[in-house]
């Protein structure tokens, strides 16, 4: 009967505790946001790899291209979050650095793949 407050099972503390308000997050939504970032970065790493292969990049210039693509992705994700990162994440590092090196393996794989198809076979 009692109408309680909207506590989902993933929220941590009482809503009246203002001091802890900044540390209380809806962890479910935070995880969902992290997944969105992960999928975006992985897909763009693959696309970046294909483009690097088609352009015929060799060596360091390819890695530089990867960092360029990731930097643009970070900027685009920040724009998607309307630059108010603290509404959707707990820190800027999530949006700028998370998954940065995770995509590197996919990038190199598809870079090699595309380069072989276009320039060697």
């Amino acid at each position, binding site marked *: *009967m*009692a*109408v*309680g*407050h*909207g506590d*989902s099972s993933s*929220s941590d503390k009482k*809503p009246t505790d203002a001091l802890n*308000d900044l540390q*209380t*997050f*809806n*962890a479910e*939504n*935070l995880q*969902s*946001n992290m*997944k*969105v970032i992960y*999928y*975006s970065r992985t*897909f*763009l790493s693959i*696309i*970046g790899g*294909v*483009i690097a292969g*088609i*352009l*015929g990049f060799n060596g360091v210039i390819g890695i530089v291209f990867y960092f360029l693509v990731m930097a*643009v*992705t970070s900027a*685009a*994700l920040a724009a*998607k*979050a309307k630059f108010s990162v603290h*509404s*959707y*994440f*707990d820190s800027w590092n999530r949006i700028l650095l998370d998954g940065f090196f995770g995509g590197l393996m996919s990038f190199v794989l598809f870079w090699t793949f*595309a380069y072989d*198809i*276009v*320039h060697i076979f």
Partner: protein
Amino acid sequence: MGLGFTVGVIGVLILGHAAYSTIQYRSLLKITEEEFSGPPMEVVLELLVGLLFCMWAALTVPGKFLSVHPHSDENRYVSLCVRLRYSQIYCVVDFTGNTYVTLVRLTVSCLLCI
């Protein structure tokens, strides 16, 4: 989401076409026995367009960002309290969309949830 997916597929097809054009350009260079220094300008533009399409798809298809504040509007649920003679009806819709209706035949003070 359907539109984003379509744009992504178009972007990948554009990249495929650019790859095919580069293969043909290379076979032309083999005939003229020149070195490959880079694909032609049209192919570079095509790659850029493909990248933009794929980037747009990568940002829209995985879904929206949800607010992490526990008290934000999206996470709140609304309670509507209606006084009906000596009984009260509570209608509560929580953030998962479930609706609970409770009828209480007591004169209890109406608790509005914030």
